[in-house]
């Protein structure tokens, strides 16, 4: 690829990203940073866990994203009696016209480009684990038969931080499969005014698809491949590795205050998936900045979103009210010495 073509590809990526973001912003008031993070995760090929109180636009964000990208969208409301087959699909006996009966696989709602798992922590671990294979392998196995999920496959799961009774904490293995975790906070007063103005009228705003309907999945995959082509120098990889190591009690052995806090408040640190998430997210950031290579700042920009849900905090942290995000931020400051 010549430099001109590469430059054009980067510009195309930037345009598409900006267009999707702009379309979503017509419907979703506020949450600009969350939308950017979600889009970053989408183009990086990961999944997003969204945490926020009810009624602040979690579902709206996902639906808007699907409409803007012109991709198929399904929603699963997780409840305590939801079964795995309700997600993945099941085989049913189908009688053909000639009277023969055969088991036919009926795909579940997971077979979509964009899947919203609403209040995922209300389902049982068994049902939650049904998502594991799909998120990691992009396939589901039903009755010994694996069914591939069409690309792009993007899961957005929401967590309701209140009404914790009757919920099942997501296992660490499942949390680790989310590229980013996004926190949605209450909108500010001006944003709330705008929400009222746009959602209570007779003509609510409508999202115009950015991608061509026929070519949308392929186009999305093309953009995702472009992200993977972004160059990452060894010194940046070294920085990412050091950063992830610093989030683990075993790796944070220095005298720095941040490392002391990691030893005190973190039981388990980020996994290698966390490092992968950092690099992939940084690649998207680099493209958005028009660069064919990743810098330290790109890594730092996605570090909190990529690492906050991967830290298993100790009881001391809960007692002291120390959040994982604050630990990541302090580790980021301490990791500046790793920049060579």
């Amino acid at each position, binding site marked *: *690829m*010549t*430099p001109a073509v*590469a*430059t054009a*590809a*980067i510009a195309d990526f930037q345009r598409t990203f900006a267009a999707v973001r702009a379309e979503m912003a017509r419907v979703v008031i506020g949450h600009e940073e969350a939308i950017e993070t979600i889009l970053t995760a989408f183009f990086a090929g990961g999944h997003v866990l969204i945490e926020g109180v009810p009624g602040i636009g979690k579902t709206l964000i996902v639906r808007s994203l699907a409409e803007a990208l012109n991709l198929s969208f399904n929603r699963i409301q997780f409840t305590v009696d939801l079964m795995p087959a309700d997600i993945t699909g099941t085989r049913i006996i189908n009688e053909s016209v000639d009277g023969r009966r055969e088991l036919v696989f009926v795909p579940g709602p997971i077979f979509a480009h964009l899947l919203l798992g609403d209040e995922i922590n209300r389902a049982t671990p068994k049902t939650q684990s049904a998502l594991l294979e799909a998120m990691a392998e992009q396939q589901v196995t039903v009755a010994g038969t694996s069914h591939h999920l069409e690309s792009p496959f993007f899961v957005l799961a929401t967590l309701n931080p209140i009404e914790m009774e009757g919920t099942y904490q997501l296992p660490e293995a499942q949390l680790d499969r989310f590229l980013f975790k996004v926190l949605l906070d209450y909108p500010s007063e001006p944003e709330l005014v705008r929400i009222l103005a746009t959602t209570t009228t007779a003509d609510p705003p409508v999202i115009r698809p950015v991608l061509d309907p026929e070519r949308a999945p392929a186009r999305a995959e093309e953009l995702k491949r*472009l992200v993977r*082509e*972004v*160059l*990452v*120098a*060894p*010194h*940046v990889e070294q920085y990412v590795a050091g950063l992830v190591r610093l989030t683990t009690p075993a790796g944070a052995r220095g005298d720095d205050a941040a490392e002391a806090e990691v030893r005190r408040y973190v039981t388990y640190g980020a996994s290698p998936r966390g490092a992968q998430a950092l690099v992939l997210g940084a690649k998207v950031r680099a493209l958005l900045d028009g*660069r*064919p*290579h*990743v*810098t*330290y700042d790109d890594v730092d920009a996605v570090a909190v979103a990529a690492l906050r849900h991967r830290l298993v905090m100790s009881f001391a942290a809960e007692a002291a009210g120390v959040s994982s995000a604050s630990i990541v931020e302090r580790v980021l400051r301490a990791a500046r010495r790793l920049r*060579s």
Partner: protein
Amino acid sequence: MPELTPTGAVDVVQRQVRRVRRRKNLYEAQRALYLAIAAGTVAALILLPLALYAPTSLFAIAAWSTFLILAGLALVLAATMRRRWVASHTVLAWIESRSALAGRLRTLLELAERSEVRPGLFHALLVAEIGRDLDSWAPRRLVPRRVPRLALATALIVTLVLAAALRLASLAAPAAPTVSFADQGIGGTRADSTTGALMGERIVVAPGVPRDDHSAGAADDDSSLTRLPSALQENVRQQVWGKAWERVRDALAHAGTPSGTSTEPPTEYGEEDGADASEEWEIARAPSGELTRRRRPGVAHQQETRAESDAAGADGNGASRPEAGSGENEDGENGGGAGNSTSPGDLFAGTHVDTGPGEGSFELSLAARMRADRGAGRRGAGGTAPGADPDAKPALAAEQRRESAAHRMTVPAAYETVVREVFAHRRAESEQP
């Protein structure tokens, strides 16, 4: 700037990186060198006047202090240079921190070292961007000057100032002291009955000779570290003043006051008269033709010539001539019983009108050291002092006669007679027949 090709880009970039690093480190090395020279020169500028004119103890303190400060400065310079030195593994980061490359350079070169990585989609773009920015991190752009001008100018200026100071110092070389040796005692009496020290045997005149002193502690401590400052000071004087300093040193050594030990005026004089170090000292001239020979022929000749000229102008005050060989060995050196023949007439620098505040009196500082027994002996006609008796038994002198210095001093004409009376050579009463 020629366009880089992906295949040859790494070599081009690596060459430029090496050039940048070489230029930067050369600049830093020069800077450190010039600053070190400047610091050392400033230290020399501070120490030079102290080495030439200050007592050894003061110079030692200054020298050690300067050495410590210089050592600290050297450490600071070394640490600064280490911080600013661009190592091979940090040169890429240094270049990128000073240019708008945003990590492109490091990415290209580091990925080039990974042979297993295929050139990616964006490799060509990265190379093109670096080629476009090649001039933005050229050596002359990142290190604009080959020479650190400020440091160089500082070093040059202080070096020139030091050269000028050395020149001035060499021009201000001290005059060689005049050392006279008298061969007869002043009346053969003890000048100080309390100490028993004979005075007036040898009188030293040493105009402008810098004083050296040794504290008691320093004298006791004879380690090489203690001797180092004095050796340095001696060396500086030797280098700056050369022959002139050698003459001063030799003259003082011959006079029994070796340089570096004590060329100070006698204590009682300094205390009584409040003399300072810059006051000129001079030997009272010996009677005509009675100077003893010196160790160094040149000096002896000089002294004798002076003594003879003084004698030619003497007023015939009746100062007795010493007998040949008195107190002097065959080598012409003064023996332990060297006598004196100092005439009070020679003590007068000249007759002048007193300009002091009191008309009826003047301060006779010389009296402190030049005592004589009152009422002894008879003066000659005209009030001239009687001639001093030759030392009849020089070998039986009670002790080594001390070398001591005395002033020539100015005496008002009205007091001349009185002074002559006071300083007249008389035979002690006990010695009078």
